[in-house]
């Protein structure tokens, strides 16, 4: 059993997902931000508010109508729309 689970974690850590995909699958494990795609003020602002490389983030829940979704980040709770969340690539936490 234990072996299977470790394999799963390994395969996930290799697989890069966006935050939006994380929310879609309802995965509420703590993950780490790999990168924010795109340049310019849009992604700069996402990074300024804390969605920057290395930050730990957790999906909490989606809004009753499906979008946006709530995330926990740096001890705060933030809401992001799907369009924003799909710009943020995450990976499993190394440890």
């Amino acid at each position, binding site marked *: 059993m234990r072996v299977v689970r470790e394999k799963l974690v390994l395969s996930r850590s290799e697989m890069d997902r966006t935050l939006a995909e994380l929310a879609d699958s309802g995965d509420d494990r703590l993950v780490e931000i790999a990168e924010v795609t795109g340049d310019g003020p849009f992604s700069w602002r*996402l*990074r*300024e508010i804390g969605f920057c490389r290395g930050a730990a983030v957790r999906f909490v829940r989606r809004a009753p109508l*499906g979008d*946006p979704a709530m995330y926990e980040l740096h001890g*705060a709770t933030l*809401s*992001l*729309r799907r369009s924003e969340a799909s710009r943020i690539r995450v990976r499993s936490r190394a440890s």
Partner: protein
Amino acid sequence: MTELVRLGTGAPSGRPARIAFLGAPNSGKTTLFNALTGHRAKAGNYPGVTVDRREGDLRARFTDLSVRLIDLPGVYSLEPQSEDEAVAVRVLRGEFEEPSPDGVVVVLDATTIERALPLVAEAAELGLPLCIALTMIDELKARHGEIDLEVLGAELGVPVLGVVGNRGLGIDDLGALVAESGHWTRSEALGEAARADTPEQRFEWAYGVLGRCRRKVPQADHWSRRLDRFLLHPVLGPAVFLTFVALFFQAIFTWATPAMDLMSGMTDGLADWLLTVVPDSLLTRLLADGVIRGVGAVIVFLPQIVLLFTVILFLEGCGYMARAAFVVDRVMGWAGLEGRCFLALLSSYACAVPGIMATRTIPSERDRLTTILVAPFATCSARLPVYTLLIAAFIPADPVFGPFTWQGLTLGGLYLLGTAAALVSAAVLQRGLRRGASLPFYLELPPFRLPRPSDILLGVWDRAKMFLRRAGTIILCVSIVLWFLLNLPRRAADPELGAAANQQAILEGSYAASVGRFIEPVFAPMDFDWRINVGLVASQAAREVMVATLAQIYAHEDEEGEGLGRVLAGVGDGAGEPLLSRPSALALLVYFAFAMQCMSTLAVIRRETGKWRWPAFTFVYMTGLGWLGAWVTFLAATAAGA
């Protein structure tokens, strides 16, 4: 020596020291500002309540020096992307009329300090003396979080203070610290922070500092977790919200009416008493009918206003507003708007003027303009007296189910109508306006916090005063002018007719009647007669004037003391012909839901957009829609045999 130091503090040349409050939105700057200055600026538990800078003097009990405090809109960084952020940054950089402040208090929410600390790194770049106020220390402790303030202070090399703004804890120390701003320094550690120039570097610096301060991350707030699971539930959430709102609308009729009837009886009694004790003259009649009855008819709605603001201030203070924005964000997205637009729209339910000012938090010019143009559709508190009067008069109080009657549901329906009009107009406008650069929308969801009853009471008291001031100024003026227009020219009384009939003859021949008749063709399709038309023209100054006008016109008809509503509907013993049929009354309600009848709103649209084109556009399309909506309602209600 101490004298010398004192002279050295503050600013040169006897000018008071100027200290600015910098911090992320909803970190509690305004609460601290209020505690230190004794002001009662509006604060709330959601981001973006403060959209302009605000100044006040440090209370004398903290210092004998003169210190000016500047409250700034919240910022996430010093690279502004919206108007309110730009204001904050320009003040700090000294690009706003006055030079840079002499010191900056960086306000950080202790429960989310990881996220807030990077702002300190940016503030260090300003090169101004800094100190740090950590707010919500009580909440940090309650959630088993810890941070060593002494180490943090040593790490940063600047004074650090923990405070609880709304309970006044640590406020004395903060006041003393602010008074001594001359002693603040910028440290070496901050010099290192200032060299970080990407968000990643700033966060890395922040986590490094926190790691050395024996930081223990607070646990999630269990109450907020539980409430969120309930209030944001796909089925329960909306159900709870709708029940709450429906109860509120019902309360406007069920609970506020006794208080209102009492006040109404008092104003009528006062007017009658005046007419009996003072010799009858034009002046007495002006006072009794124009001033007491006219303005009184509006003032009697004070209980409803108090109820409305108690609910609004509670929702704002507890943190529900941000949740509401989260829940309906998808609907806003359909209308082409983002959540910040929704928060601005929500403020417009109190009054469109602060609502339009709240659009300064919206970074996109296009979204901001659209929100400004549709915000006046939100049912503002000035519409409430008109709605309540007409609904009480024309809609039966028959129960529908439980405590809910048709009256409460109609009022709820009118609020819904205004909201729908705002969203549909926004969707149409967004398709017509040029698309600008898009910026991410993110919304911070603060933990639920129980607002202090005294804060709500003070807030409601301020709103009640504002309502009374409005009644005592603009509504009073319009009422007096209207009284003259309704009672001039004078004509000799016909001794064969009674007093009421003579008064009727004067009204029918008055200047106001000519105006009302002149525009009769415009509103003929809805069957409004000249008296309603006079009210419509007068309510162009302020919506509540409609109530004052009808009260004046009907002052003499209400000899039995039936109350204005019953006279309007033509029910009760002493009443004559009804002024309005039910279809016309419904049409009038819809007209008030849509039409632009507020000069202050037009003025603020002009100020915020900088062009006359937009207030003119708003006036034309909203009033046009009001007419159209009224006509369709009239036709539909007539066909349905209402």
